[in-house]
């Protein structure tokens, strides 16, 4: 489904991604973790072309992301993305947030988009908030709306860029619950997160990144077992300390 081959990226002189190669099969849930500044967010943003890269190849469903002839908006419409800071559109209502791209990009009718939007809001437990503005919702609620907004496009895969990092601790689980449910339904997911509980629970594979390099790319059991590299060991011991 998603394939990355020897992807490298530079910000000026600084190399943020070094020769990254990995793949995500249909239905897999791949968790990407690593210390901050290790390039994991940049890596996931290369998948839908939000971050351009200088070397290597990224293909999604057989379509090359870096190819100049690729219709990026069309490709992105089929890849859902959830951001660290939710990024709901503050000037329109919750339901309109979910409707906008359905109508403007997929060409659905207003009614169709609203019906789909309401059923997704129902699913994330926020149907009664449909007419509110994003700023009237808590962080956890906003992130659940953001997930619903991405799902409304019927994506073939979902990308999550640290979806719980900006949340107060008591709101993390309500978002993770939605993500776990999604994973169990067989959604293809690539998730940048430090939530090792989530990884343990639903991940098929875990990628560990450090200094722009994919240091480990293993099954969940291997990663949480003993067969793990020194840096990953150090990282895990830091975040699982308490």
């Amino acid at each position, binding site marked *: 489904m998603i394939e990355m081959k020897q992807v490298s990226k530079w910000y000026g002189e600084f190399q943020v991604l070094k020769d990254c190669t990995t793949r995500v099969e249909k239905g897999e849930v791949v968790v990407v973790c690593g210390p901050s500044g290790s390039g994991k967010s940049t890596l996931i943003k290369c998948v839908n072309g939000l971050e351009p890269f200088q070397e290597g190849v990224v293909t999604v469903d057989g379509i090359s992301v870096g190819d100049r002839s690729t219709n990026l*908006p069309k490709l992105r419409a089929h890849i859902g993305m959830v*951001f660290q800071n939710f*990024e709901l559109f503050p000037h329109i209502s919750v339901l309109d947030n979910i409707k906008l791209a359905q109508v403007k*990009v997929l060409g659905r009718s207003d009614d169709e988009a609203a019906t789909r939007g309401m059923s997704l809001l129902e699913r994330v437990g926020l149907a009664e908030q449909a007419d509110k503005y994003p700023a009237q919702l808590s962080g956890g609620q906003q992130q659940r709306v953001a997930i619903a907004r991405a799902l409304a496009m019927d994506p073939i895969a979902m990308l999550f860029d640290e979806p719980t990092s900006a949340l107060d601790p008591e709101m993390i689980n309500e978002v993770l619950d939605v993500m776990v449910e999604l994973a169990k339904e067989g959604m293809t997911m690539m998730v940048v997160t430090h939530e090792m509980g989530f990884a343990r629970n639903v991940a098929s594979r875990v990628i560990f990144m450090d200094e722009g390099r994919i240091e480990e790319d293993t099954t969940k059991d291997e990663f949480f077992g003993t067969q793990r590299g020194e840096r990953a060991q150090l990282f895990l011991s830091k975040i699982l300390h308490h």
Partner: protein
Amino acid sequence: MSGGFDLHVIYQNIPVLWEGMQMTFLLTILAIGGGILGGTILALCRLAPFRWLSLVAGSYVNFFRSMPLILVIFWFYFLVPFILGRPVGGFYSVLIAFILFEAAYYCEIIRAGISSVGRGQVAAGQALGLTYRQNMRYIVLPQAFRNMIPVLLTQAIVLFQDTSLVYVVGLHDFLVNADIVANRDNRLLEMYTTVALVYFVLCLVGSMGVRRLQRSYAL
């Protein structure tokens, strides 16, 4: 000059003053509308990924911002008819001058407004499959204009005052009509005081409105 402050002369001339005020309002509104439209296009050009386009728009802005408004008005009133070989008329020449001049100022305001919308919002729109144009139209510009309302209104107040410059081409706006009455009836004190008060009150109300808006939009 007959002595005393004669309120009667003001009262008597309200129709002619109102006629002038309508011209002032008409010019202000058309210039704001045209200026914002032109300014938006210029701002989008300045922010466009094509270098030459942003260079052209940037030069336009810098050029008009270095010109005194009165010179631009003269230019369109005297030189453009000369080039075209036929008169343009006071109203249209002044209106075009105002719009072209204001567009340069509105461009900078709108550019700042667009830049005030976060990168994350743009990325979210892109991730949903919106094209550049759709992203601008549905996500960025609505938020940018909301953020800009106070500054846009402030600029509108300045423009409202600047329209009084049309006296140089003989258009009958509020100030010119008051001036005509003042000289005809020899009531300079009454008329100029009235004009000053009306401008003051209208602009004061305008800027109080701006301050209210600023408070309600401030997070």
